[in-house]
């Protein structure tokens, strides 16, 4: 079973507008990476740049206009610039559901954390130690989402 991150939010915009913000490099850079190079299309490799030094290669898994967009990458604040398909990675998926004209639910899932090499997880660790209830609630959410 994989570990999962899941987030949802409501956006007052059309599905097309939201999809383009995710799938078109010139719009993606307005809210996510600072730049996108390479071929950001289904079945191709591209590279996100964050700030001056941080780069992250991505492989675009799927691109279904106005509904679904997914890519694979290596998360956790590391600087991974090789072919992500050759190493353990996570799958990031955006799903767009139109609830009413101009109003959509956007679901984000990231799956595959159990397969990641330990140094990636360790890089992002802090000394943070929170309460049990908080932690277990979160863990259950992440780990059980796939089992449902």
């Amino acid at each position, binding site marked *: 079973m994989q570990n999962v*991150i899941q987030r949802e939010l409501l956006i007052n915009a059309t599905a097309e507008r939201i999809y383009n913000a995710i799938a078109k490099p010139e719009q993606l850079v*307005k809210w996510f990476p600072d730049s996108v190079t390479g071929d950001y299309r289904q079945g191709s490799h591209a590279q996100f740049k964050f700030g001056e030094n941080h780069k992250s290669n991505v492989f675009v898994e799927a691109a279904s206009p106005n509904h679904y967009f997914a890519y694979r990458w290596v998360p956790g604040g590391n600087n991974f610039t090789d072919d992500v398909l050759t190493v353990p990675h996570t799958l990031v998926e955006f799903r767009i559901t139109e609830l009413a004209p101009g109003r959509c639910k956007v679901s*984000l899932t*990231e799956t595959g954390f*159990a397969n990641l090499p*330990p140094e990636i997880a*360790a890089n*992002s660790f802090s000394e943070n130690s929170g309460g*049990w209830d908080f*932690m277990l609630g979160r863990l259950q959410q992440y780990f059980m989402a796939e089992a449902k």
Partner: protein
Amino acid sequence: MSQAAVAQLFKALGDPVRLQMVQRLSNGAALCLGELSKDLGISRQGARKQIQTLVSARVVQLHPRGREVKVQLDAAALAQGRAFIASLEAQWEQRLQALKQFTEQ
């Protein structure tokens, strides 16, 4: 905690039965094997195996109490796993808010 142990931790928690056991221990109680595996649909042998996985990942510790063994959570190990997932979740929260702002303009 070594880096390899961190990966082991994530795998140890990625199982419904083991996660259920961890939840039973979440108030800090020390439970015996029977209390820990009750109504989980697994044999005593199976329960031992699951608990051993949690011990190896340093999710729980075993404390001999007379003739039986009590199982208790290892708080430090789980806190690190939580920090990793929480930091990634916080990143997504920020990004999605940025997406919302951009598309609602």
